[in-house]
């Protein structure tokens, strides 16, 4: 085995570099710390990749058609409060279109005095803002309604991600088009294959909605609506229409498929709730969480994420005894409204089974409810808008599972 060891391989590489002018030759496996600093590193690159040692990826639920479905952010591997664009959750109904921004236009029509057709260059000329917002799918945590809840935090809560969004206030563009009296709704349409359609009440459109073209310091990713999408602070992801190409001012909601047949919460009495746009306060422990293992008893930092569609997170409490006692977690500042807030609490795992959970309170005073309380009112068939407390069981051997197994 004298020739196959890593050091002889390095020698070979160095030799070939010297002989063949092979400065482009790179070691074919990532270098470990103890190898440093005996060899030259990789050259500079035009667009960054993460370390080959980092493996966190989105998880995708199987669907019969690969163009529809969701992929979930690996929240258990997240640090801080921002989600890398490459790991932002996805939810598409008809695939991801490829759009040339030089040919993309936004049409503003219907009940306006000055119908407008705007190019991306026009939109980029307008005064812009950057805001950090969480985006959460209306169906996030939908698996938690079931008797057997999701086994890890990626699958239970991964349809939520937090980004800095850059764009133009929608109110500015609507004002520019001069809304006619009587208009009360904005019908948004995307340029994907199903031309995703949603109705948005005009007061919200004139309040804080963004026409976003930037995310985390660069253009939107194609999967996030490139080149233009709506960002509707605090509202279910589906309404944040991606690949936006039309805004029609109207006097009524259009009752699109995705606001009647979908994203409506079915109650036990058979009635369904219409236009449940806003996402309520929610939190989840990301470490330790389902699928992870504590290597030994001792001191750990419990950590997780909290957010609310209604504003700032005011308080997060943590239980490590199944809900009998709650302790206040430390909240990372700055606590931005409608954004991920990271919380932390030191905890000594003594090698005995423990049921842990977090509970968020937002600035409106609303307290995240238990799963039982939600089910008592809404039953188990409402599918969307689940925000119950998530329990994890830390077993004596340090493994972590969901509680409802």
């Amino acid at each position, binding site marked *: 085995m004298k020739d196959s060891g890593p050091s002889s391989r390095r020698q070979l590489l160095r030799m070939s570099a010297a002989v063949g002018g092979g400065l482009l030759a790179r070691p074919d496996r990532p270098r470990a710390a103890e190898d440093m600093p005996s060899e030259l590193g990789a050259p500079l690159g035009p667009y960054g990749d993460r370390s080959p040692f980092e493996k966190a990826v989105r998880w995708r639920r199987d669907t*019969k*058609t690969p163009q529809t479905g969701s992929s979930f952010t690996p929240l258990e591997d997240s640090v801080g409060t921002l989600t890398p664009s490459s790991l932002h959750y996805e939810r598409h*109904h*008809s695939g991801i279109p490829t759009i040339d921004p030089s040919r993309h*236009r936004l*049409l503003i*029509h219907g009940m306006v*005095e*000055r*119908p*407008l*057709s*705007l190019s991306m260059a*026009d*939109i980029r*000329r*307008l005064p812009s803002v950057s805001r950090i917002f969480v985006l959460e799918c209306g169906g996030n945590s939908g698996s938690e309604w079931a008797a057997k809840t999701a086994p890890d935090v990626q699958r239970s809560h991964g349809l939520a991600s937090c980004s800095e969004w850059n764009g133009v206030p929608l109110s*500015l563009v609507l*004002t*520019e088009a*001069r809304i006619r009296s009587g208009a009360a709704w904005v019908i948004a*349409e995307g340029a994907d*294959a*199903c*031309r995703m*359609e949603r109705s948005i009440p005009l007061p919200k459109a004139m309040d804080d909605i963004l026409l976003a073209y930037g995310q985390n310091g660069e253009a939107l990713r194609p999967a996030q609506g490139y080149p233009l999408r709506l960002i509707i602070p605090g509202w279910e992801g589906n309404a944040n229409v991606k690949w936006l190409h*039309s805004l*029609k001012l*109207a006097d*009524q909601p*259009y*009752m*699109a*498929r995705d606001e*009647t*047949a979908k994203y*409506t919460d*079915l109650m*036990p*009495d*058979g*009635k*369904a*709730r*219409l*236009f*449940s*746009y806003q996402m309520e306060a929610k939190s989840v422990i990301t470490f330790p969480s389902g699928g992870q293992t504590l290597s030994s008893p001792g001191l750990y930092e419990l950590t997780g994420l909290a957010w609310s569609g*209604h504003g700032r997170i005011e308080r997060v409490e943590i239980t490590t005894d199944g809900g009998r006692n709650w302790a206040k977690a430390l909240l990372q500042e700055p606590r931005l409204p409608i954004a991920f807030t990271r919380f932390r609490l030191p905890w000594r795992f003594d090698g005995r089974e423990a049921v842990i959970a977090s509970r968020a309170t*937002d600035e*409106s*005073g*609303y*307290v995240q*409810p*238990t799963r039982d309380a*939600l089910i*008592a*009112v809404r039953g188990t*068939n409402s599918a969307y808008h689940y925000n119950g407390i998530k329990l994890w069981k830390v077993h004596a051997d340090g493994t972590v599972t969901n509680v409802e197994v």
Partner: protein
Amino acid sequence: MVKPSAMVLLAAAALAAQSAKYGVGRPPTEDEIRGLGLAIAPDGTGLPEGSGTAVAGREVFAALCSRCHGDKGEGGIGPPLVGGQGTLATAKPLKTVGSFWPYATTVWDYVNRAMPFDQPGLLKPPQVYAVVAYILNLNGIIGSDQVIDAKSLPKVKMPNRDGFVPDPRPDVGNKTRAKR
């Protein structure tokens, strides 16, 4: 000679043009508005000319829809389009066009914009009217020779038309939150 009403309109247009603060963009062309003006309101606003019956729609469905939705709309690669009436308040609700969708106009709007799934935009308005009539007929909502057009479609009463209520949240736990 320009008529007074047209003059008023011209003056209003000039005023509107002046009042733009940033002055970006241009007026859209008729084609642009037509191309993106697909949205159909529940009162039928936006529905184009044309008509169809379930009898005609059966052929459209067999040719373009059944490979994904099944011969009789029972589902396959695509979701079922029939059945489920009476199940909404049970442990296993089946939400379909027939059991759940509150407006027939939504079926027209959605099929027109999004179906066939892999060839959206393929159908001409009379084909959409016909295939929507067929789906409604499969669900026992209309007769097989009932003519569906811009006038009759909004009048179709869907079984679950009254099955929706406004969002009452906060509905669980402490309800102190001031609604925004």
